[in-house]
């Protein structure tokens, strides 16, 4: 079970080139969408201004080595371990979704481009990893959706009351849930239901990537940059925050 490349099995009704072009288009959509978002909201201009202000307020200059070290620490903590989260449940849920997404997305690309047809079968480990990735997203994502979203957990909203901020999580869960449904239905063998499930999968996936300008998806770019900038400001003295107290400093 689940050791067969679902994208290769698609090719009974869909030429492999279609999926390959689609993936390239989606990557493009994310890039264009993010650029459009930054230009339209002038957020790039804003960030540039902030950097200039922070450098002007700096009390010391950071060396190249220091800056590199900050970058590495940001990648190691904030990016790799979702270290910014103070709430352990949110952190775990995010780690599941983050690594699940990486696994699922990378295996998708490898299977679609590396093993496009049934004549070029993928090693069994790839679809397994693809499914594990999907499962991680689903566990982390549904947990987040039903229990951890702050408007549900802290404001008493029903999980079913949706707002624009839910665009990302809903399209992500829609995409991955339908990916699994499509895979199962495809294995079962009915061509019509496979086409329907696959169509829905593509619908949600498209929505996910195309809506980047209006959803929280772009956080994957902004958050690491912001975390890096925050560390820089702490290090170069331009932060407006007080420095931590030495113990027993007060009278």
């Amino acid at each position, binding site marked *: 079970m689940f050791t067969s490349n679902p994208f290769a099995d698609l090719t009974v009704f869909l030429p492999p080139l279609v999926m390959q072009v689609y993936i390239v288009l989606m990557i493009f959509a994310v890039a264009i969408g993010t650029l459009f978002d930054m230009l339209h909201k002038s957020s790039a201009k804003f960030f540039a201004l902030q950097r200039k202000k922070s450098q002007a307020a700096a009390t010391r200059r950071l060396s190249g080595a220091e800056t590199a070290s900050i970058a590495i620490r940001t990648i190691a903590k904030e990016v790799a371990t979702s270290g910014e989260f103070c709430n352990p449940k949110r952190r775990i849920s995010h780690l599941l979704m983050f690594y699940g997404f990486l696994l699922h997305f990378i295996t998708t690309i490898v299977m679609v481009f590396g093993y496009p047809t049934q004549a070029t079968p993928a090693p069994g480990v790839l679809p397994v990893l693809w499914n594990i990735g999907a499962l991680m997203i689903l566990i982390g994502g549904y947990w987040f959706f039903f229990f951890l979203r702050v408007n549900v957990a*802290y*404001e*008493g*909203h*029903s999980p*079913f*009351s949706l707002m624009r901020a839910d665009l990302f999580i809903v399209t992500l869960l829609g995409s991955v849930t339908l990916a699994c449904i499509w895979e199962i239905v495809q294995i079962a063998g009915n061509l019509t239901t496979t086409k329907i499930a696959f169509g829905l999968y593509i619908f949600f996936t498209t929505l996910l990537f195309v809506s980047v300008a209006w959803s929280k998806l772009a956080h994957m770019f902004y958050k690491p940059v912001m975390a890096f900038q925050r560390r820089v400001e702490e290090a170069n003295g331009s932060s407006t925050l007080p420095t931590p107290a030495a113990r027993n400093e*007060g*009278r």
Partner: protein
Amino acid sequence: MALFSSRKTKFVDSDILVIGGGFGGCGAAYESRYWGRDLKVVVVEKANIERSGAGAQGLYAINCYMGMQWDENQPEDHVRYARNDLMGLVREDLVFDIARHVDSTVHKFEEWGLPFMKDKETGRYLREGKWQIMIHGESYKPIIAEAARKAASEVYNRIMVTHLLMDKARPNRVAGAVGFSVRDGNFYVFRSKAVIIAAGGASHIFKPHSIGEGMGRTWYAPWSSASAYGLPIQIGAKMTQMENRIVLTRFKDGYGPVGAYFLHLKTTTENAYGENYEPNWYNSIKEMVGDYVDHQPVPTCLRNHAFLQEVMAGRGPIRMVTKEAFKDPHKETVGWENFLGMTIGQAVVWASQNIDPKETNPELVMSEPYVMGSHATCSGAWASGPEDCAPADYQWGYNRMMTVDGLFGAGDTIGGTAHKFSSGSFTEGRIAGKSAVKYVKDLGSDQPQLNETEYEDLKTVVYQPIENYKVGRNEIVAGTVSPSYISPLQGIQRLEKIMDEYAGGIGTFYMTNEPMLNRGLELLAMLKEDLDHIGAEDLHQLQRAWELNHRVLTSECVTRHTLFRQETRWPGYYYRADYPKLDDTEWHVFTASQYDPKTGEWHMTKLPVHHIIE
């Protein structure tokens, strides 16, 4: 509300219900547990007890501490001080009662971890003035909230209590309360044998100086929405001294405290021309109030009066002379930290306007009026006094019980007990807590019963504002203007304008008279009717709607008391232009009111002031 949610009714049973988790409520919870080991003690708070109430940002002084261990003050001295400051009219039994217990409260605070400033030579608490000691109190509230959480059986945060419930069987006995969750909207019915009200007094009933965003910078917390008065008034409890509104002289705009400045930094005030103006008004004050002007320290209201006269004579702005004092680095630090641990907004004002007290003498201002019971003022419910000290007509069995059986109060809720501040309010909570335990144990099997019709009817009433908005919203395209409902903000703005223009707000330099007060009552009557037409868009607005409700009821009470007292007892707080002088012959009394919920009538009386201390 979302598709799949529904409004449930949740029942909470308790032996003692504490409404309000501020200083009074936390004291009540603590003491109730000490005396009632096996009792169920429930605290209900509309916000989060960790930071709720007027102590949210901290305090940098404890203004009620005797220091009996060092012979610094005795409780009788405190009674004289409070009586003097309130121009003779305080409940001396209640004030004495708080003063004799407050030292144990303060010592427990130190034990619990509140940092006290100490005198380096004597090792004693550092005195700011005769009655005040200095603390590093940024976490004052979280510390006492911890004590309350350790004591209470349950703490319900984010539940707004809107009404008390009465006993089905016995008249004039409380049986619980109702409210709603500000988070999930569920209806809560609290069934309790005894109820202690320790809610907030009244801010935002008079128009403040700042009316934009600045509306938020009131001297007394904006979330003190008069539930301390609204809840007992609704069920006919006797209220006292509700005309005794307080006006404060504080730093301009930010309302930063001046106590440490006057007492510790020893600063003084001057008019715009650098003159010490207070002595110039001595004679005119003496004409108004007689010998009271010679009492030391000069009563708060009389100092206000001099300030006000000077400003009206066109010699403002009045400034606090700080340039000398701030040259001392210790005093400069105390001056700033005083704000940071108590009224951070004043530090923000000075930073925004480049005001450094070393170089400028900062401006002072007289605030809009507030109605509360724990400061240099004592509005509130009429309560029974301590069994060993109270004159016979001041006690009817249980200390701090109101004129409704089983209903107790502490903090801003209780009238006649000026100058208790934070430590005194916590202490009064303790007193009420112990009393409530006694009451519960004496009840035995004679326990109050809820009337199901009463709380079912109230359920409809409580959510009416949400219904009004949902249905009425269909009439208009968009925006805030509807012919059929008003928002809570629109309601509070109307209330503040009425009180300002007719009941002696800043707009009339605190002056009012009988025709003005009567006109105010007419307008308040229409506002009260319009309370049935508040439109609340969501649960947050529903909370605002009920806060408005309690404020309007309280404002009517304040206006009636102001009308009833035909005298100017506290010039500098407010003036009756038609009775401009103090009149000890007729008015050396407490005013009292009782609202009849069935007829809607108010019954006003005078109550004697007994001086039990020489």
